[in-house]
């Protein structure tokens, strides 16, 4: 009798759904509903005072404003270079930590702090590094004669843009390194040994074995990094609050300021929806790319 019950599909479905129900219901309330509500609010002029339906007005204003397109382009540039450098530095880091050197396991622990420490606190450390009067970068620059006086990296448009990007890269590198390293360790050793016997050098082995074998991990990491970089908030908010004169205002900072700085929920929501659309486009492109690569792999 009991055995029958175990195989009975009805009771299994029921139990399966019961077990995931609490998590799913919670997520529907805290993530699902807010997502729908964001869409709804984006068609209103909602604020602290109340709300009225305004149709596509928020979007029309948004898409016709040159300020918004500037912010969007800036966000893309910021994200693109940040992700690219995260991947490159992460790859270099993984290769270095994968080398059979003394102290390897220690290095592997040492790389993780930027990821473990709350971003807000890491950003404070960088704020200090970038400070013109008492930061180490400016200090070294003056000693070496590159700078002729204290230089506040966060006070000028271009340097602030690069400085926030460097901090974002710093936050992302350990995670990327970790995954690349794990990916490298999963590559069968005999591949390398065969290539070595055929006389392939170090670089050629990396280029012809490591890189292609890592492709799925590289694609995964580029998506994860791109999404988290695109909506990276803490770093910019703490370092520059989007300044100087808007030079580091990305879409998420703009959305935050509009919605919770000025309490213009409607306009803020329209911006949030634009972000959701852009992230979803990323994700769909990613899955398309991934499925094509998988097909290639499985069909030889």
């Amino acid at each position, binding site marked *: 009798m009991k055995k029958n019950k175990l195989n009975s599909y009805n009771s299994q479905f029921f139990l399966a759904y019961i077990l995931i129900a609490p998590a799913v219901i919670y997520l529907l309330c805290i993530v699902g509903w807010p997502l729908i509500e964001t869409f709804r*609010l984006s068609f209103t002029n909602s604020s602290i005072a109340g709300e009225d339906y305004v149709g596509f007005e928020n979007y029309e204003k948004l898409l016709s404003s040159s300020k918004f397109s500037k912010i969007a382009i800036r966000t893309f540039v910021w994200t693109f270079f940040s992700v690219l450098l995260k991947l490159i530095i992460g790859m270099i880091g993984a290769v270095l930590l994968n080398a059979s050197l003394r102290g390897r396991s220690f290095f592997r622990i040492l790389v993780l702090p930027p990821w*473990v420490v709350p971003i807000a606190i890491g950003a*404070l450390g960088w704020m*200090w590094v970038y400070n013109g009067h008492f930061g180490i970068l400016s200090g070294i620059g003056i000693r070496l004669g590159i700078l002729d006086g204290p230089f506040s990296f966060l006070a000028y448009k271009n340097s602030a843009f690069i400085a926030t990007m460097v901090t974002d890269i710093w936050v992302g590198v350990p995670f990327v390194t970790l995954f690349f390293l794990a990916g490298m360790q999963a590559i069968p050793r005999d591949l390398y040994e065969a290539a070595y016997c055929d006389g392939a050098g170090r670089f050629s082995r990396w280029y012809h074995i490591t890189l292609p074998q890592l492709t799925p991990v590289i694609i995964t990491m580029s998506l994860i990094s791109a999404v988290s970089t695109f909506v990276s908030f803490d770093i910019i908010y703490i370092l520059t609050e989007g300044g100087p004169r808007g030079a580091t205002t990305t879409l998420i900072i703009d959305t935050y300021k509009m919605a919770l700085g000025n309490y213009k929920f409607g306009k803020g929501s329209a911006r949030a929806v634009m972000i959701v659309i852009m992230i979803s486009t990323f994700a769909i492109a990613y899955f398309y790319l991934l499925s094509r690569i998988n097909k290639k792999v499985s069909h030889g």
Partner: protein
Amino acid sequence: MDKYSLPLKIFLYLSITVFFIFILLPFVEMFYASLRPLKHIFRSPYQFYSDDLSFWAYREMWNTVPLLGRYIFNSFFMAITVTFFTLLFVIPAAYSYARFNFPFKQGSLWVLLAVNMFSGAVLLIPLFKLLRYFDLLNTYFAMIVPGIAFCIPTSIWLLKAYFEKIPVELEEAAYCDGASRMDILFRIIAPLSTPGIAVTAIYAFIQAYAQQFLFAITFNSIREYMPIVSGLTEFIGYQSVKWNEMMAASIVGVFPVLIVFIFLQKYIVEGLTAGAVKN
């Protein structure tokens, strides 16, 4: 395989040094700043060394910001609460994903990943309204309730991978001996997967600790409930910024997390990367 030649070895170590200068620079700078007397910090040009470094700021910071201890407590309290509730939601769900086949299984797993993509910042406006509606703004719950939601998806993925490693035969044997599904979950699966649950808990804790900043500055304005990440701004006074104490407090605030992490890093790294690399 070929051995490293000496020049290559030197080159590798040099590269590792440069890499770690980048990784550790802000921490070293933070620690260094916390040791300097305040008047010294503003001395220009920059001094790489001076002979009056001390741990004075680590004592004085408790007087400058009397609630500092409270902030650190708040951070821990909220992160632990978030972790606890996350596990409560995640253990049954992950078990279900690992053991059963049901319609929409794969689909819902992808949707979970998608939740990860909408970090809290995108959903702040309705969350703000939701919390205001339930009168939860300016309470611990304002930071805990959204915190749990954003810890759930990755935790499910992590724990599911662990559950899948436990042989089904064990459960079937218990089932034939007359154990119920709930018995199996709590008497067999839970003890066997303690390491997996521990990794998930640590992941959730680190995530919860890290994401407090956004929720704290948005949903809470009461000092007594502030976590350390937003409490640090109190070192910025009307007259002067007590930088050295701020840095000292930051270090004290993250120290416990770092220690926990260093001891358990092996399991976390394995747990996090296992799933991603396999796929």
